[in-house]
């Protein structure tokens, strides 16, 4: 979320409630599975024709034993990749879905704010929508009527209160939606990535409102992709992965874990070793590995990259064999290359057919965060060749954001070389 520099959100940490604070939300061993029919039956006709056909389904476990506790007055972040189950968790907390098993306990009134302007009716005026939404969020009609002017004033829509919503600009809608959320005056606010709303002055207003809610001791649960806002606002954060709690605690740490997860599962896959043409040699393996030698998909910024390759010669050769590597970024731009020459003369007359080599290269990592590909070529003077493009891929994660594709170590030497006088 782009937060303007001028925003004056107070840092979250100083007033974080301690572990002795009473619980606002307690979730115990929550399970939720969705049944996805292998063949969906959408009509009574189909059901009548195939009475048993639809009974097959596979289960998707969106949440698998999730437990956590949020303390009263806490600003709590829930992060996770798409499909990690965070939306499901949010909807369970908001009583939109029903859990399969497990307990959810909530102290006080909870106002979900899942999407801007949900339940707004385009055909009604702003004022009517304010009343309707207020009642939906659990206020009595009397309470809403008392507050409606304050809500419309907060949204800066005083002149448009009796205009139909369909004539509103998106900015006006957003302001109205945000004001309505504040109107509910709930003890717990459940917010799904809606902070980046409105123009700068309204953002400031929202920031003030959040701050106000914090000082009032309200509990705020923020569900988002955006690690910046989590680190900025939240006291604690929960990282969900595959329906399980991966991490809970310090937002910065949750952020790092999240980025790592995010890149590891990035959609690009290497072509592997099958694609290239070969003559006289065969590539058996090409992997990016960690220190223990097992396959890794991510490499932390500034820690060495290890690439392990296995090559098998398929005919005898007396010539030296070169194994070369090129590293490219996701756009296919070559960044650097390296290689190793293996000369049979050092050991014997020649390499026999069937001879195998395992090479592990350790490379100093000066790459900027992002995705990279490894390409291999095996060649010799007597015509052996084997190539594999996109043989392996890895992600460099962590580290500061940077322009460009490399982040070399830089040292400055600064000395005064003269003064104006």
């Amino acid at each position, binding site marked *: 979320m782009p937060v303007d520099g001028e925003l004056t959100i107070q840092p979250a940490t100083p007033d974080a409630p301690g572990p002795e604070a009473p619980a606002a939300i307690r979730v115990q061993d929550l399970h939720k599975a969705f049944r996805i029919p292998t063949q969906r039956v959408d009509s009574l006709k189909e059901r009548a024709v195939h009475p048993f056909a639809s009974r097959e389904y596979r289960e998707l476990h969106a949440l698998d034993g999730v437990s956590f506790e949020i303390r009263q007055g806490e600003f709590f972040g829930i992060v996770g990749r798409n499909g990690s189950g965070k939306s499901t968790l949010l909807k369970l907390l908001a009583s939109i879905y029903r859990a399969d098993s497990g*307990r*959810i306990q909530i102290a006080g009134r909870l106002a979900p704010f899942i999407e801007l302007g949900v339940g707004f009716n385009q055909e009604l005026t702003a004022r009517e929508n304010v009343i309707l939404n207020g*009642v939906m969020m659990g206020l009595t009609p009397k309470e809403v009527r008392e507050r409606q002017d304050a809500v419309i004033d907060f949204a800066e829509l005083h002149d448009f209160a009796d205009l139909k919503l369909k004539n509103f600009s998106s900015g006006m809608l957003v302001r109205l939606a945000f004001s309505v959320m504040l109107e509910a005056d709930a003890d717990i606010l459940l917010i799904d990535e809606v902070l980046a709303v409105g123009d700068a002055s309204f953002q400031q207003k929202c920031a003030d409102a959040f701050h106000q809610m914090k000082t009032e001791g309200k509990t705020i649960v923020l569900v988002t992709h955006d690690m910046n806002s989590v680190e900025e606002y939240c006291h604690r954060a929960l990282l969900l992965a595959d329906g399980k709690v991966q991490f809970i605690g310090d937002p910065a740490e949750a952020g790092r874990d999240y980025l790592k997860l995010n890149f590891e599962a990035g959609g690009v896959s290497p072509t592997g070793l099958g694609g290239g043409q070969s003559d006289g040699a065969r590539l058996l393996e090409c992997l990016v590995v960690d220190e223990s030698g097992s396959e890794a998909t991510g490499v932390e910024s500034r820690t060495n990259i290890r690439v392990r390759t296995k090559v098998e010669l398929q005919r005898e050769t007396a010539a030296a064999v070169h194994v070369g590597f090129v590293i490219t970024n996701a756009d296919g731009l070559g960044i650097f290359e390296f290689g190793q020459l293996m000369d049979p003369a050092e050991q014997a007359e020649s390499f026999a057919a069937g001879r195998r080599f395992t090479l592990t290269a350790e490379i100093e990592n000066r790459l900027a965060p992002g995705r990279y590909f490894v390409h291999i070529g095996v060649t010799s003077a007597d015509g052996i060749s084997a190539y594999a493009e996109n043989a392996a891929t890895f992600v460099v994660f962590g580290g500061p954001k940077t322009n460009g594709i490399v982040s070399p170590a830089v040292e400055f030497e600064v000395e005064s070389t003269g003064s104006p006088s």
Partner: protein
Amino acid sequence: MSTTARPVAELREVQGPSALGGGWRRFFDLLWLISVTEFKRVYFGTVLGYLWSLIRPLILFGVLLFVFTQIFKIGSDLVEHYAVMLLLGIVLYTFFQEATSNSVTSVVAQEGVVRKTQFPRLVIPLATVVTAGFNLLLNLVIVLVFVLAFGVSPAWTWLLFPIALVFLFVGAAGMSMALSALYVRFRDTAIIWVVVSQVLLYLTPILYPVDAFESSTKERLLMVNPLAVIFEQVRVWILHEPQAPTALEAAGGWLGLLPAAIIYFGVCIYGMWYFNREAPRIAEAL
């Protein structure tokens, strides 16, 4: 917003979504508010507003009146106030059809709200019934004018009319609950209901009086339809014609009313039960 410290709230169990969740008070507040705003929207939303909801039954009335008094002549021969009976029947049936057919797709049409907010689900189909009810009440005022204009004299039995209205309303509500929940799963519910409600129109003594059959077996068969029972009784109460059989007479005794009662209460209870069962999962099925 106040800055006073809040009392420490107790942890409460969260039950998840349901048909009625959130307390009766909130349920009725929401039901009333949604119905009224929807009614106002239709009423003030278009140029002719309310007229549209009147014109449709009136045109149907005009056409049928012409057909059955000028061409077939069955109406005017059998019933003294055929036009009034026809109009009353059409207006009441229009309510039933409007309420049920609007509610079929109502839950799915409100998809955004159902999937993203927490509130008692039952409000959605019931609001369409209540909105149709407002229309009915307005239309009944017009009917009253016709009734008096055609020379039907007021009688004490008119006071019983609200009983029929309550039965009709509850029946429409039960049907709406079942239909809207079924539609979430089975999308051909809408098409099936169009056909069924079309057939029901002819299986209810609206265009013809029950006594047109001149066969007590057929009369009894007709009284299996709960709507027929209600409509026939309305005719007796409002038109108070001596030759018109009451629903009880047409059915041939209390035993004859049993099938209609079973169907009526069956639909209501099933609708309530089925909607209640489906409510927690509606958001997922959409």
